[in-house]
């Protein structure tokens, strides 16, 4: 995945950059599956396919543009500095973190997640605990998310329909 991301950044052809981006998406979907989050994996695959189709289509219309430009070293130097700076902090904070994959409730007895898992089936009747959290315990989050999507689509349609209206009235 990291290799594909680097390829996507540094390749010359736009189309191969898009395809490398798709590889990143499918790789992250596989990672979700390995981390036992099938809900997330399904969403990631489907959204990735649609985004890839859209991007490839856009690339075909635009045509193959080769990126060009002078090599500048100051941004690389700054990026290297930032990476070094963050790595030192992350190194020390990783020592404090529990082992990867350990549930939070094993360290903190009163974590809310244990309550969701124990009482979720009684209180919501939903066998899929992801849904019981998304659509019952934490539904305000979902409401906000739905509002975000609605607003985003509204904005996209407002921008895109400026010339499209002629076709709409005909068909």
């Amino acid at each position, binding site marked *: 995945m990291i290799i594909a991301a680097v390829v996507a950044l540094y390749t010359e052809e736009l189309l191969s950059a898009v395809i490398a981006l798709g590889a990143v998406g499918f790789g992250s979907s596989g990672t979700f599956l390995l981390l036992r989050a*099938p*809900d997330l*994996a*399904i*969403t990631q695959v*489907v*959204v990735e*396919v*649609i985004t890839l*189709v*859209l991007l490839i*289509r*856009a690339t075909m*219309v*635009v*045509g193959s*543009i080769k990126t060009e430009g002078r090599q500048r070293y100051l941004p690389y130097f700054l990026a290297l500095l930032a990476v070094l700076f963050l790595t030192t902090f992350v190194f020390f904070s990783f020592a404090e973190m529990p082992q990867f994959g350990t549930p939070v409730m094993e360290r903190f007895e009163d974590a809310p997640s244990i309550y969701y898992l124990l009482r979720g*089936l009684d*209180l*919501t*009747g*939903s*066998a*899929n605990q*992801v*849904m*019981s959290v*998304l*659509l*019952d315990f934490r*539904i*305000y989050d*979902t*409401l906000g998310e*739905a509002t975000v*999507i*609605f607003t985003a*689509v509204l904005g*996209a*349609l407002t921008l*895109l*329909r*400026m*010339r*499209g209206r*002629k*076709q*709409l009235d005909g*068909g």
Partner: protein
Amino acid sequence: MEDNRSLIIKRVSRWMAPFIFLYGVYLALYGHLSPGGGFPGGVVVAAAFILILLARGEPAALSKIPYAVAKELDALGALLFLGVGLAGIGVSGVFFANFIQEFLPGQPLEWFSGGTIIINNVAIAMKVAGSIFLVLYFLSVLRISGEGEVGFSSLEEK
């Protein structure tokens, strides 16, 4: 430009689209029992229409899901989702209370369980299906109309 699409693609998309659509509906309706839920379900439903749109052209897609239907689907999904929340105030006094589960609890692991979660999943699926299809449709309308200065071709200047 309608004729240069391959016959195989047109045929196969005609056979595949109903199954993709059904899988999306299944994901949304059984989201409370198995992995899935409203958002992936809605995107899969939209993908079925996008497949028709890409493989068989704009008129074929619009005959399956007219523009007005997609628009209303988007708005109705959002309204239904909000309506469930407001009905929670009316019945139980709390915004988004799961009132069906309180008064009419279903058997866990049966389809009728989870109360308002089913309705919310369907609402989100409607919303997402409508809106994602609309965005893709608008982008492809711009491409087909081919008017130079709008749409993707404006990217060329950058």
